[in-house]
Structures are given as C-alpha cells and as structure tokens.
C-alpha cells in the first residue's frame, strides 16, 4: 500500500522530461553563444506569471489543502519557517566549508 502510494506520487518520467528540456536549451544556448542576443526577458516574465498563476490555481482548487490550513496552520507556519531557516543556515555553513562560490 505504502509502496504503491509512493510510486503514484513519484513520477520519474516528468523529472527526466524536465532534465531533457533543460539540457537541450543549454546545448542550443552554448552553440549560439556568439550570435547576436535576442531579448528573452519578456518571454521569461510572462511565462513565470503563467506558472505562478497555475500554482495559485492548484492551491485554490485543492479543497483538502484549504481545509487543512485553519486546523494545523499555526503548527505548519512554525515548522515551515524553522525548516527554511535551518536549511539556509546549514547551506551557508557548508558553502563556506567547501568553498562553493
């Protein structure tokens, strides 16, 4: 049961697709690195906004998520903030130690 649940949530194919698209973009960018630059700012900004809109849509249409917020909201708030702070601190320490620029 548990294994089945993990497998339904965990879809490696989507992650592979994302990786392929990213690498293809990088390869093309590298090949055309000396060409005259086109401005991609507008494309990126409007796509980011489309992505954030659909993220919001997923939240708003998720009744289970909305129902869980008032019940566990305060606990979730504290845990998420501490998780963020500790991960940032640990990363900064590790970066200094390993000299990652």
């Amino acid at each position, binding site marked *: 049961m548990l294994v089945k649940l993990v497998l339904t949530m965990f879809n490696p194919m989507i992650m592979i697709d994302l990786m392929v698209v990213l690498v293809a973009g990088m390869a093309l960018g590298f090949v055309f690195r000396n060409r005259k630059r086109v401005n991609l700012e507008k494309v990126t900004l409007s796509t980011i906004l489309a992505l954030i809109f659909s993220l919001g849509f997923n939240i708003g249409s998720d009744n289970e998520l909305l129902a869980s917020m008032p019940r566990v909201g305060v606990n979730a708030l504290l845990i998420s903030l501490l998780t*963020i702070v500790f991960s940032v601190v640990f990363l900064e320490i590790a970066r200094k130690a390993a000299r990652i620029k």
Partner: protein
Amino acid sequence: MIKYILVALALGIIAGYVNNNYGPAFPNGWVSDYLFNFSLILLLFVMGFVFGADKQAVANFRKTGWKIFIVPLSIAVGSILGGLVGGYILGINLVGSMAVSAGFGWYTLAGPLAGQLFGAEFGALGFAANFLRELFTILAVPLLVKAGKYAPVASGGATAMDTTLPVIVRYCGADSLIIAFLSGFVLSLIAPFTITAIAALPR
C-alpha cells in the same frame, strides 16, 4: 517583479477556488496540467538557453564540479533539524515533525505520505507545512538572496527544480540555474525515502 507575482498568485487562487466550487467553467486540468506543464517546459528551455549562452555561468559551474552535491545534502540535514526543533517547541511527536519537514516543500508527496505513516493530523501538517515552504520561498526570494547567494535554493528545497526555479534564477542570476535545478532534483529524488526512513525510527 514580486508585485506581479503576488497578483498572479492571488488571481490563480481565486480562479481555482471559484472554478472548483461554483461549477467548473472548464476542467481544472486545463490549468493545473496543460498551462502548468507548458509554462514549466518553456521556462526550463529558455533558462537553459540563457545559461548555455552565458560564458561566465558555464565557467563558474565547471569550477564547482562535484561539490555541487554538498548543496542538497546540507539543505536536507538543515530541513530535518528544523523539523526536529519545531516539533520540540510545539510538543508534538518529534519523528512525525521531522518526517513532515523531510518532504522538502513537495506538499503533494509529503501530505499523503505523512498521513499514511502518522495519521490524518500529520497528513494535514505535512500538506500545510510544505505548501507554506513553497509559498514563503516565492514571496521571500528578494529578502533571502541578501542572507546568502544560494539561500533561496535552500528555502525552495525540492521545489527549486520547478515552481520556485524561475523566481530563484531571476534574483540569484543565470549561474544559479544549475545549482538550483540539481539541488531540487536531488531533494525530490530522496524525499520519498527520507520521509519513510524517518518514519521507521522508534517513536
């Protein structure tokens, strides 16, 4: 920039809520599957292109090399410790709170999984805590970047490979793309295992 993001997020939440609860004007999947995946794929391609064309970014990545994997590992340890401290302060089951923060922001995974392993109350907590991590990261990237160059990558956790990636790259620069994506990728990969492994600890 953050202004537009807030507006887009708010409009999305309202549209999703209205469409879901007052008779669907169109299937939810149009936005949550088609628009989401299309914009994500397009963004990754464009950001990859910008990275590949940026000589400085490519050189910087070559210099970092294998050390890049220290990034997701330190984020994982920090996240789980954050959950431990949070659970201690709240006086709830420590194993449960650690498992919740071992979702690294992937709420659609951490919610159901924590619910299965620790009961409904922790399911709701896993859902909400990880969702808030994603939300806070998007909202706080401009602030976080002042705390450290890759602080938004840490805050984003597993979401640094998709939903929070474009915002991170915009504020941290093109050379953060690979670190952010790989860190999110590794954290997404290990999240199901960290949650289940922590759940196996004695409680």
